[in-house]
């Protein structure tokens, strides 16, 4: 599995906030996505109909996730009926082994890949290389970060943090191309390099945006046509899907094909939508001789088992929650330390990879709710983040509780202080006494207390007012009122 570096969130996010290149890219690309999304939706739908579409999509996904065993079984039978092979992998290692076994059986030396986030979870490229198989990413963004040896910065725009100069340098180093700042020229350099791979690769590996259980169809949306090349030119096609990617029937799909591109990039439709329902039939002109579909768990059951977090399995990976998240927009994707970033990454990383190492992520949110409002399947991300915080504060001490004794002490003190009016009045009187040496013109320029001192690095903190409101009320503001 891909390494999880989420424990370094604090440091990595601090670096990102200071990195001018990253800040420039984030502002520019995120503004572009959010504006395009808003315009596409406003042009095509009334608020009410967009809302109704989201509600329906959420219901379809909730139904599917709630009956996952049934739909996995149905998909299994459908794919096999179409002449394909189906595999179930419990974890990243098992899924990787299945891919390598298929490759070995076919003597594969080179595999071309269309964008797949599950394969990022698996760390598939490294594993293939170790097994003597050359993997080549064919989505331009993925190709760039593969050359750079990085992980995706954004679910749908993996190389958004790279400038054209950096791309030119990468191409110069790896492909010996002449340096250029012309984007069209850079694209054609990549196209020429990839063309060779499309012609020679024995195996195509893709993800799956949707898997239609009833028909056994893998649906892939791309803008570059690389998905279609990857699924039609090599002898073998292996599709890897998170086991939550299912939709019951083909009739369910059009709704999602309307929601996904608009939410993601503000496109009405992607340039290519590919439907793959098995290997080449006798009457087909092209297509793979063999088709495999691997359903991957890799921690998804941990989400399914939790009745609140289960909702996260409805995600269709559009990236809208990242684009609208004030935190993601400042720290970018790498700070989150694994494959998924932004609000959805903050939710799934812990349950999927290990709660304790990802404990910083659920707190990396202002709970502003912008993510929930743009989610095409209405995942209540703030609620899920709060639920994870609850597990970190009060959950099993063995594998998820991370609240420190100091944090707990604060919480107990706070609880004791606000339990009753008398306690509140006593503790705030004490506070007024203790703060005295630090107050300058009603402000504290530093808060010399563990855990909270960060506030005053760049901001003043208000001192407790000389007279609380309750006292002002009692001393006359309340007048004759005898309430309370």
């Amino acid at each position: 599995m891909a390494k999880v570096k989420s424990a370094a969130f604090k440091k990595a996010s601090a670096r990102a906030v200071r990195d001018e290149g990253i800040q420039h890219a984030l502002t520019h690309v995120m503004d572009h996505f959010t504006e395009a999304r808003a315009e596409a939706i406003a042009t095509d739908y009334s608020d009410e109909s967009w809302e109704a579409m989201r509600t329906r999509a959420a219901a379809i996904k909730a139904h599917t996730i709630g009956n996952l065993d049934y739909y996995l079984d149905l998909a299994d039978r459908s794919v096999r009926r179409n002449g394909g092979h189906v595999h179930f992998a419990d974890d990243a290692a098992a899924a990787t082994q299945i891919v390598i076994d298929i490759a070995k059986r076919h003597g594969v030396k080179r595999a071309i890949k269309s964008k797949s986030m599950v394969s990022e979870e698996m760390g598939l490229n490294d594993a293939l290389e170790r097994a003597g198989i050359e993997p080549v990413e064919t989505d331009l963004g993925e190709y760039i970060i593969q050359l750079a040896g990085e992980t995706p910065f954004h679910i749908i725009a993996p190389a958004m943090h790279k400038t054209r100069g950096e791309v030119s340098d990468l191409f110069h180093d790896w492909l010996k191309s002449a340096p250029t700042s012309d984007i069209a020229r850079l694209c054609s350099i990549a196209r020429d390099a990839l063309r060779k791979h499309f012609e020679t690769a024995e195996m195509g590996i893709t993800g799956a945006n949707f898997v239609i259980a009833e028909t056994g169809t893998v649906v892939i949306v791309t803008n570059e046509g690389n998905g279609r090349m990857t699924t039609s030119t090599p002898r073998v096609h292996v599709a890897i899907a998170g086991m939550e990617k299912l939709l019951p029937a083909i009739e369910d799909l059009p709704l999602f094909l309307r929601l996904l591109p608009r939410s993601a990039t503000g496109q009405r439709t992607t340039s290519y939508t590919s439907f793959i329902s098995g290997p080449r039939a006798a009457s087909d002109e092209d297509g793979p001789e063999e088709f495999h579909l691997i359903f991957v768990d890799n921690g998804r059951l941990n989400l399914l088992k939790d009745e609140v977090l289960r909702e996260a399995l409805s995600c269709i990976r559009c990236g809208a929650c990242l684009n609208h998240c004030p935190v993601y927009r400042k720290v970018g994707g790498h700070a989150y330390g694994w494959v998924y970033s932004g609000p959805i990454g903050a939710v799934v990383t812990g349950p999927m990879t290990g709660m304790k190492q990802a404990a910083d992520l659920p707190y990396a949110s202002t709970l502003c709710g912008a993510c929930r409002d743009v989610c095409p399947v209405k995942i209540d991300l703030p609620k899920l983040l709060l639920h994870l915080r609850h597990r970190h504060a009060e959950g099993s001490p063995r594998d998820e509780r991370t609240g420190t004794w100091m944090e707990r002490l604060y919480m107990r003190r706070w609880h004791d202080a606000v339990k009753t009016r008398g306690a509140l009045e006593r503790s705030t009187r004490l506070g007024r006494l203790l703060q005295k040496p630090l107050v300058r013109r009603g402000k504290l320029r530093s808060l010399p207390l563990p855990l909270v001192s960060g506030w005053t690095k760049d901001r003043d903190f208000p001192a407790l007012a000389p007279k609380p409101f309750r006292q002002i009320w009692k001393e006359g503001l309340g007048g004759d009122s005898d309430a309370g």
Partner: protein
Amino acid sequence: MALCATCLVDQFFPEVGVATVTLLRRLNVDVTFPEEQTCCGQIAFNGGYRTEAADVARHFMDVFESERHVVLPSGSCAAMIKVYYQELFRDDPEDLERAQALGEKTRELTDFIVNVLEVTDVGSPARGLVTYHDACHLLRELGISAEPRKLIEGVPGVELQEMPNSEVCCGFGGLFAVKYPHISIAILDEKLEAIRASGADTVVANDCGCLMHMRGAIERRGLGVRAVHIAELLAGE
């Protein structure tokens, strides 16, 4: 009508509480202040400490559930009661029912003035060019954005000049602001730039959380803009 001052107003910004009372009395509202009130419990709930949060929330319900209307000068605390108490008491049918009943009669201040009192001109003598920041919980948990604007526009001496992206978070987020001050400040920088771009001399918001965050940086940096609570603007003090 019972005023819940909120703990931030009570202890740190009593002038906002005074302004709220002045404003409501000017509108002929009989304001009471149940003195046993303390805190709604949001800080513990947001930190994940639901045992402590539930205990404090029960005290809150004890204090306020006999009132006809509960009004708060805070979208965030109102959202805690109206929305998140239901999550907090998800597995406790008895308290859940109490929470739902209390939630229904709880209103954020501008919601109460515009939708219950049906007033948009509150007779404020305030003057100036102001811009309005949509506090997140007020906007997205309670869906309130028109009400405060109507009230601001109803003040004859005040001109409302919208800032770009007024609905984007200021970076406060309660616990977030102390856990990740570097990100919190980076988000705030954009908000302060938007306020500057509006050309307004005053930024108005309905939540003392956002305000102490914005004001903290405004004062540290000596920026020439005031951050005031909407009750203060509408009271005209």
